[in-house]
């Protein structure tokens, strides 16, 4: 029950933050793909860096047990195909699953339509799952993490990603100024 309440609270905070970041607007999101507005990139990369630094330091201080954090399994080909399909849908709709809910909640019609499409897609996939299943389970690689894969410390990866983010933010701002 507590977990459900926490989920509701986190969900509302997430939606509110997305909306405040301006990610409820399809034109803003689509700007990402034309390199005119890199808000999505900046918001998402900031979130990654924040979560990563938080997880690393909380684990380091003994507050968070990283072994209890779920690491999703990798299925190379199905995830590649899913990612491509997701990307195409994102460009066409101008919204992704989370932002479509935010857009719909603020009364935007396109958000509601994207949500409808999303749930239709979920239903269609569920109904067509039997023939898809072989592909769905192919090229399984288990839970992968960068430190495992590259045989380096977590700290090195954390540092590298923070450095990458800061450089990328600089670059993104320059691109936006030019646009």
């Amino acid at each position, binding site marked *: 029950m507590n977990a459900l309440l926490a989920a509701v609270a986190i969900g509302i905070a997430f939606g509110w933050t997305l909306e405040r970041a301006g990610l409820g607007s399809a034109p803003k999101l689509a700007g990402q793909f034309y390199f005119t507005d890199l808000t999505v990139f900046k918001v998402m990369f900031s979130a990654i860096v924040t979560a990563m630094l938080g997880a690393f330091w909380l684990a380091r201080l003994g507050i968070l*047990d990283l072994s209890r954090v779920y690491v999703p399994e990798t299925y190379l080909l199905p995830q590649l195909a899913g990612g491509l399909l997701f990307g195409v849908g994102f460009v066409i709709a101008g919204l992704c699953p989370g932002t479509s809910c935010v857009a719909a909640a603020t009364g935007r019609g396109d958000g509601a339509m994207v949500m409808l499409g999303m749930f239709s897609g979920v239903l269609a996939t569920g109904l067509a799952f039997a023939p898809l299943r072989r592909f769905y389970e192919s090229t399984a690689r288990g839970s992968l993490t960068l430190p495992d894969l590259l045989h380096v410390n977590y700290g090195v990866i954390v540092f590298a990603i923070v*450095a990458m983010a800061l450089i990328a933010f600089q670059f993104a701002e320059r691109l936006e100024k030019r646009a």
Partner: protein
Amino acid sequence: MIRRALAIAAATLGVLALIASIRHPEPPQDGEGTQVTRSRPEPRDVNAVSAAAANLEILQPRSAGLRMTISAVELAEWIRDRKPNLRIIDLRSEAAFDEYHLPRAERFDSLASAQLKPDETIVLVSGAATNRDVYVLRGGVRAWIDEVMNPTITADAPPDARAAYERASIVSRYFGGVPRIVDNLPATRVNAAAVRRRGC
């Protein structure tokens, strides 16, 4: 200004992370260099359930209608198929129940407080038995987590193991589990927190 401060904070924490892990590397894993160990500790309460079920096997004398056992996959099929008058009674602590419980499970402090009716099929997830038709879930919640939520099989498994895996996979997906075909069966088992449903 705020953005600059945030960037400096992130950079500082990132550099400190680098220094921290070079000066105090995490313990190496099976001699594979300096990796963080990713062993998943087994939750104590889940083991306690298995132990309780095992004790029940040993302590209770065999008598008619008592202590039939049911496998986790069979029980999963019962729940999915909405077997009439099925009741799943969980006698573990409230904390253990809150952390993880089977779908449709009801928690009671004792079997007496569950107010069972004669025509009901009872599956005990742990605890004591009575002198009536009661199934005990073989392996307790641990078995549910391993066999229903996380069925695994190696690619070169024999046909009968494959058939069992296929059967388990069907119910596994129904309950939001993740059946996996792996190169090597995992040495450490997944814990309760990891089987919660997840999404993005």
